[in-house]
């Protein structure tokens, strides 16, 4: 047994400096189209390359809808002028100030993950939050098996029809105050499955969402950022309007 202890100790500390410092290791994020980029697109050439309407032509510069970008890279690869790319990961958007947990929850949150039809990649990234690189326990975030003890409902996937009842049941079973975190493009807008007969257009069809983490899949650090935003320990990327305000409205 002691050789395992030795092995563990020998590995040393690999944990990311984030959120105290900056993590600039290679390969931690696939990046997203830069939402702040002022790209004029008169002929709709760039926007038409986007298969999910994440790049929307307007009268002025192209509007980037991060809820829809699935990293197909069609706007940057083999496409003439590449669209400006943001290689960071602090993408989490907040619905409102009220979505942040009250101060007494700052230090620790318990999370129930609901896989509502994801492809496995988002789930894997959530799972990786527990690995030594990200080690979310050090920040007081814990994944719990029961929604009864959960503060955050972390939903991934476009909400397949069969998962609606489990999702609603889990949401109802959570004690107040509770927050919903939609992770991944599928959970935000339905992603590539949006036009399916049995898939909705994201979590906000069913329950009010508090924080959104775009990405397909969002890398672990992006999810971590989302959790920090919920706990009030980090600034959100932006405040946005809910996609589909459900009955009962936004908090």
């Amino acid at each position: 047994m002691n050789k395992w202890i030795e092995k563990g100790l020998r590995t040393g500390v690999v944990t990311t400096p984030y959120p105290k410092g900056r993590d600039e290791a290679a390969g931690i994020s696939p990046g997203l189209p830069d939402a702040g980029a002022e790209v004029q697109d008169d002929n709709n050439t760039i926007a038409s390359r986007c298969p999910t309407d994440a790049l929307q032509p307007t009268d002025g510069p192209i509007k980037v809808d991060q809820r829809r970008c699935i990293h197909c890279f069609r706007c940057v690869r083999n496409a003439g002028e590449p669209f400006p790319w943001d290689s960071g990961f602090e993408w989490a958007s907040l619905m409102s100030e009220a979505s942040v947990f009250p101060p007494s929850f700052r230090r620790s949150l318990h999370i129930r993950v609901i896989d509502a039809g994801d492809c496995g990649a988002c789930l894997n990234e959530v799972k990786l939050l527990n690995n030594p690189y990200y080690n979310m326990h050090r920040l007081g975030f814990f994944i719990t098996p029961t929604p009864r003890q959960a503060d955050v409902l972390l939903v991934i996937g476009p909400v397949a029809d069969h998962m609606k009842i489990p999702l609603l049941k889990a949401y109802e079973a959570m004690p107040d105050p509770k927050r919903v975190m939609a992770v991944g493009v599928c959970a935000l807008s339905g992603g590539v499955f949006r036009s399916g007969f049995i898939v909705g257009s994201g979590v906000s069809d069913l329950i009010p969402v508090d924080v959104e983490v775009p990405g397909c899949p969002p890398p672990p650090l992006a999810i971590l950022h989302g959790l920090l935003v919920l706990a009030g320990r980090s600034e959100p990327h932006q405040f946005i309007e809910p996609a589909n305000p459900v009955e009962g409205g936004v908090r």
Partner: protein
Amino acid sequence: MRIDELIAQAKVIWEDALEAAFNISPQEAEFHCKPDRMNEFCNWLHHQKIYHFAGMIVEERSNRWDIHYLFYEEGVAVRILVKTGGPLDQKSFQSISRTIHAADWYEREAEDLFGLVFEGHPRLGDFILHDDVWQEGVEPMRAGFNIGAALENHKPKRDWRPRRIVRAPGSFIMPVGPVYSGDAESVHFHLETVGEEVIRVFPRLFFKYRGVEKIAEGQSVDEALLLAERFAGTTAFSHALAFCMAVEKIGPTVVPERAVALRVFFAELERCRHHIGVIESICNSTGLAVAASQAAILEEDALRLACELAGHRYLFGLVVPGGLSCDLDTDRCCQAVNKLKGIVQRLNDLDQALTASSSFLDRIEEVGIITESQARDYELVGPVARGSSYCNDLRRAQPYLLYDQYDFEIPCEQEGDGYARLRLLFAEVNQSLRIMDQVTENMPTGPVSNPYSVSPGAAVAGVETPRGATWHWVRVAEDGKIARYRPITPSFANWHGLHLAVESFAFQDFPIVLATFGLSVSENDR
């Protein structure tokens, strides 16, 4: 057996059953069989001629049903499509699953989605569309499917009862899921038990059914590629590759050599990363925290490596019809292989440490045993099959890309237990590294993609994903849109066989067996 010999032989023996028999390509034969002789003919192919059953594809053409049964032979790259069908108002076909049990779930799926009835199948219904929320008569894959009318039939059915086959005093169902554990994919298990041991397990799948095949209909190839890539994200590259290969076959488009080599490179990189992930979850299931953390570090390293090389941790957006979307210079390939060598070196250290941990081996040895004959009869694929000495790997059996040019082994284990499957994962990672090494050594030069133009037609392509063989069937209509896209996935085959491994086992072994199977729900549910 050579394909023309087979055709000649079949024509003699099955003269009255076959409507046509011809070869489409040197490696592909097509038989048109009368619906009422299907069972016998498939039986002959499977049991007498030892062709493996790969899957079943149902197509609703403009005026008739086309049902394709895909068989293939090991080693000589022979593929056989047996086609049967009938007018659209014919709803009933012969079931072949009594003789070829692997067809069981394919027929159930077709019954649920197309409304076809397979005579002789004992257990149709309540499969993909759950009977407790969807009333009978919803056939979403039919051409005239009306979602509005379907939703009217979408109401909870209170008198639904789970199917139970265990008849013992005091037996009950231990429900697990669909939301269970900390971070498990959504699936519902009915563990039938009288306490302490699982007598029989029924995985109730398709909680994540997203109707990928239906969404793809009418989409352009480019759009459908996104689906093929994203229905099973952890093996995205392999599935996108299979889709692209099928589309390129319809084209036909020649993929530049450099792209082919890089495709092999990335496919093997994905295999390494996937296997490390499964090793991590096996360590986790036995509660060996240090080993799980070590494996998780390596998995993250592999993910970062992929992101460095291809811009995406799961290799999304990389493969396109005609080649790859971006090039990778050979130097970076070499650096990557060296990095990966470091990862694999540490993985092998982990392997050694695990082999020396008796408490770990106690939990994983002799659990979840699958015998070779079971693996064969269920046509299990991937590491699960190879762990039971059913050594079937499409890279060998149906060489594609450049796999026949590389020197590598298909590892195989005899015992069929959890430990055999674990050893296999370690061995396969090493073989993948060996292939990648050879790829970088002989990297061809040139462009990484050829222009691709859509043309109508249908084709099937097989790829050995990390979890096993996948077959993607694509039919492109005259307008260049997808008419039918049907991925046959390895998890679908292996979920079918899971119950064999969990019969009469202690409760506490269940998560371990599940982890050693390395199943993906999203790949199965599509």
